[in-house]
């Protein structure tokens, strides 16, 4: 089971599921887009394309924030406004070059986004949209009332951009600048999503079965990743504002109000807010549709109503009810998840922890206590566990086993007591810092990212053994480390017997197999202590035997294992010691034989024997 097969080493690349249109598709699309200004198309088309590119740049950020992370911002138009006004002020009042104006806008945006993010992102998800609504409305009135920014009349005479002396004053020249920005944003986002940080970003969307507990247990800070996504989205919007200001050459506050923010959200949802290319589809579709509707609806209904607003609203509601994936999901359904080769040379290259001697104390649980309101879920539970030892935690339903697990791993905070792991007091530490010390776990309710491939899910486990950040992902200097992480993920999947499903979506596996994937993910973190919550549930007999074999082998490798398990044959055959819990208290502790013979344990499971 633990044999490592040989496979040819090849270069591989891999992108977020559903965003792949194949290399030929990319080149064809890029070629057509770059060709348009050279063709005798009317100036109107060029203008439209310029605005579509600028809008798409903003919407790509929303895709990252809303579609990937499940957060949203109603303040994107305000960040566009910051980018536009910063460069307008810098170039017309301070006489800086437009490129310095871009830098100023990005800097201001970063500061504001970090403040807004720090204030809201520790709290539940609806605080960011509320804060950004407020920020967008507030900025609008400030822009409209500051003399230095021309009040509601705005600023004029913004210079055109030039690159190494070549002026981009004409729309056809500016077109290239816009689309280079948009293209870089799109490919940069795709690269980010296919990286160590990107995989974490893809785990936190509650709409796709995500949340904070799992990535935190992998050692990642969810708060920092949310902040990263919000920051990137804001910076892209700011860059779009810069492009907008130098295209229009004159700006006023009206395109930066809350209504415009809602428009960007509309583009994202309609195009497909889960897909980077959906941003482009949404921006193009919305721009074209708005022109059509503004031309035709007044002719049909007469009068001066904003009829297109009504149509847009209805489309938005319909899109979310009928096709939540947006227009792009109709296209992406035709592309399969790309397979790639695992490089054998990358195996065993990630750093490993030094393991303690067998029998050395690894975990010491000292009188832990957890109170939920009036309910004491866990009361004064103590036990310890050494390296190379398997301890089973058993007890009837509701005995507090999973709560004990969550207390040890830091997913819940202790009410009283202390947990010492690997010689350090970890009671009260967040689960990510405990995870970094070498504690890995699985969950009673499986926490995989259903839309991500099995191997990517397992690669999440390598998070704390790797260190490339988002910049490395953009520059692709993380590739060697990524190959190593995937090789490690494949090794663990092979070990657990899942080598045939590497590229399937995790959500398509049976529940038993999903539990095994969780074990592989926990092993990919190279833990000292493994906490397994009902690993054998949903497995067939043969699979259980194979799993028992793997766990026994881990014991030989001097890992500590703590199992919560209901399958008595499984746990009694495997564990060195058993801790029995009932009503939140420890009932008894001892070898399987002692526990099986105990009348108290029998009473706990079966009720008192009539004698």
């Amino acid at each position, binding site marked *: 089971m633990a044999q490592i097969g040989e496979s040819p080493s090849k270069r591989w690349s891999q992108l977020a599921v559903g965003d792949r249109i194949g290399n030929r598709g990319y080149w064809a699309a890029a070629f057509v887009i770059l060709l348009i200004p050279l063709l005798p198309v009317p100036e109107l088309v060029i203008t439209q394309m310029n605005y579509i590119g600028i809008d798409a740049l903003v919407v790509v950020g929303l895709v990252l924030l809303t579609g990937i992370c499940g957060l949203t911002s109603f303040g994107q138009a305000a960040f566009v406004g910051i980018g536009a006004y910063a460069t307008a002020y810098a170039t017309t009042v301070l006489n800086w070059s437009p490129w310095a104006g871009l830098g100023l806008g990005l800097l201001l945006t970063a500061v504001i986004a970090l403040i807004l993010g720090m204030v809201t992102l520790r709290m539940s998800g609806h605080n960011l949209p509320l804060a950004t609504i407020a920020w967008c409305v*507030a900025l609008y009135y400030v822009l409209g009332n500051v003399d230095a920014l021309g009040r509601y009349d705005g600023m004029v005479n913004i210079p055109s951009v030039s690159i190494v002396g070549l002026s981009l004053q004409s729309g056809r020249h500016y077109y290239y600048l816009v689309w280079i920005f948009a293209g870089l944003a799109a490919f940069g986002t795709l690269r980010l999503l296919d990286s160590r940080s990107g995989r974490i970003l893809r785990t936190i969307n*509650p709409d796709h079965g995500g949340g904070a507990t799992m990535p935190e247990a992998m050692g990642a800070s969810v708060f920092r990743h949310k902040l990263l996504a919000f920051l990137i989205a804001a910076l892209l919007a700011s860059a779009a504002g810069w492009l907008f200001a130098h295209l229009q050459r004159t700006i006023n506050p009206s395109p930066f109000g809350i209504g415009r923010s809602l428009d960007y959200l509309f583009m994202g949802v309609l195009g497909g807010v889960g897909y980077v290319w959906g941003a482009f589809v949404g921006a193009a579709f919305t721009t074209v549709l708005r022109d059509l509707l503004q031309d035709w609806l007044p002719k049909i209904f007469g009068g001066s109503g904003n009829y297109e607003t009504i149509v847009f609203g209805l489309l938005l509601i319909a899109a979310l009810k009928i096709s939540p994936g947006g227009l792009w999901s109709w296209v992406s359904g035709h592309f399969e998840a790309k397979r790639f080769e695992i490089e054998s040379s990358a195996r065993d290259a990630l750093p490993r922890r030094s393991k303690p001697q067998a029998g050395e104390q690894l975990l010491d649980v000292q009188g832990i206590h957890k109170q939920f309101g009036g309910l004491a879920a866990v009361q004064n539970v103590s036990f310890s566990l050494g390296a190379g030892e398997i301890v089973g935690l058993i007890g009837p339903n509701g005995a507090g086993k999973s709560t004990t697990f969550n207390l040890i791993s830091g997913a819940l905070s202790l009410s009283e007591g202390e947990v010492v792991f690997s010689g350090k007091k970890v009671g009260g530490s967040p689960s990510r810092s405990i995870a970094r010390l070498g504690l890995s776990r699985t969950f009673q309710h499986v926490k995989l990212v259903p839309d991500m491939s099995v191997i990517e899910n397992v690669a999440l486990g390598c998070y704390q053994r790797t260190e490339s950040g988002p910049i490395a992902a953009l520059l692709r200097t993380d590739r060697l480390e990524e190959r190593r992480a995937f090789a490690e993920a494949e090794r663990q999947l092979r070990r657990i017997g899942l080598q045939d499903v590497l590229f399937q979506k995790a959500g398509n596996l049976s529940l038993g197999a999903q539990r095994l994937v969780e074990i592989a993910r926990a092993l990919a973190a190279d833990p000292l202590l493994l906490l397994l919550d009902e690993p054998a549930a949903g497995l067939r007999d043969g699979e259980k035997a194979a799993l028992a074999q793997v766990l026994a082998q881990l014991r030989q490798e001097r890992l500590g294992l703590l199992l919560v398990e209901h399958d008595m044959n499984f746990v009694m055959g495997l564990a060195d010691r058993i801790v029995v819990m009932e009503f939140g208290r420890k009932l008894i502790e001892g070898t399987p034989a002692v526990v099986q013979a105990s009348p108290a344990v029998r009473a706990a499971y079966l009720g008192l024997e009539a004698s």
Partner: protein
Amino acid sequence: MDFTVASMLALDGVTNGALYALLAMAIVLVFAVTRVLFIAQGEFVVFGAMSLAQLSSDKLPSTVWLLGVLLVAAILQELLVGIRERKPNRRLALSISRLAVVPLIVIAITWVSVPLRPPLEMKALLSLALVAPMGPLLYRLVYRSLATASVLTLLIVSVGVHFVLVGLGLVLFGPEGYRTPAFIDTSWDIAGVPVSGQAILVIVATSALIGGLFWLFTFTFRGMALRAVAINELGARIVGLSAQRAGETSFMLAAVIGALSGILIASSTTIYYDTGFLIGLKGFVAAVFAGLASFPGALAGAIAVGLIESFGSFWSSALKDSIVFAAVIPILLWRSVFFGVAEEH
């Protein structure tokens, strides 16, 4: 700033704050029961105000048409769903008539009574009655089938609802502004501070409504059912409470509260078809004070928003809205420091 100015500003702030409190409570109620961040709440304010304004110039209010449009759409949806699910004709007819009876009666009464020139108070009641059924109709049309969707999806859907309602508002009311006559024209002088009857009416009406809501939630079955659904939807369903019914009730209350606020402010503020959004957002700011969770908190937040606004406008009337909305950031910082826990959804 002397004492008189300060007390005038304070009175103004409390009066406005009372209105924001009404909206904030509607927002908190809808969010607790349905998880919908209903950013279109302000549109009900406009509809209430517009109905009264048009009624008081003895015109048939355009909200009659709006209610008609919503009703027709809801009936069509009911028919479509009924046909798809092969409901028996009798049950389908019954559910459609149950849906249509109240709106049709309200429309009929309005139609008949406009030429009779009823007194202003009667017109205000008619306006409330016209807007009230829009809440449940919107819930049925838009949110009922999305009961399991995430907060984020429901929020974006609400953006769509806002687009549609504002768009329809422009078509129905046109771009011009409206005002209504005041209910009480007199004004008293208390310790040198002029106190208008309208201000007193606003504060009394708000207090009465808060009392009414308290009574509803504490002593009535419908109200307790709402609370139950808000606390634990699954548990409420298991004991036989209908989450849909609770959703419809909460939206009806939101519509009534919104329309009432509109009726109360329309004599002192000119209302345009798109005025509601900003007013509703101020209700949201107040609700954020309370973490969208507590009614007394929302009340306190709303009074604070009203005071910030009135004192802010004394300092710089052009920037008063900026000041009100910028206040959200320190509030969230305070909440994040003292209540901030990364929570699992």
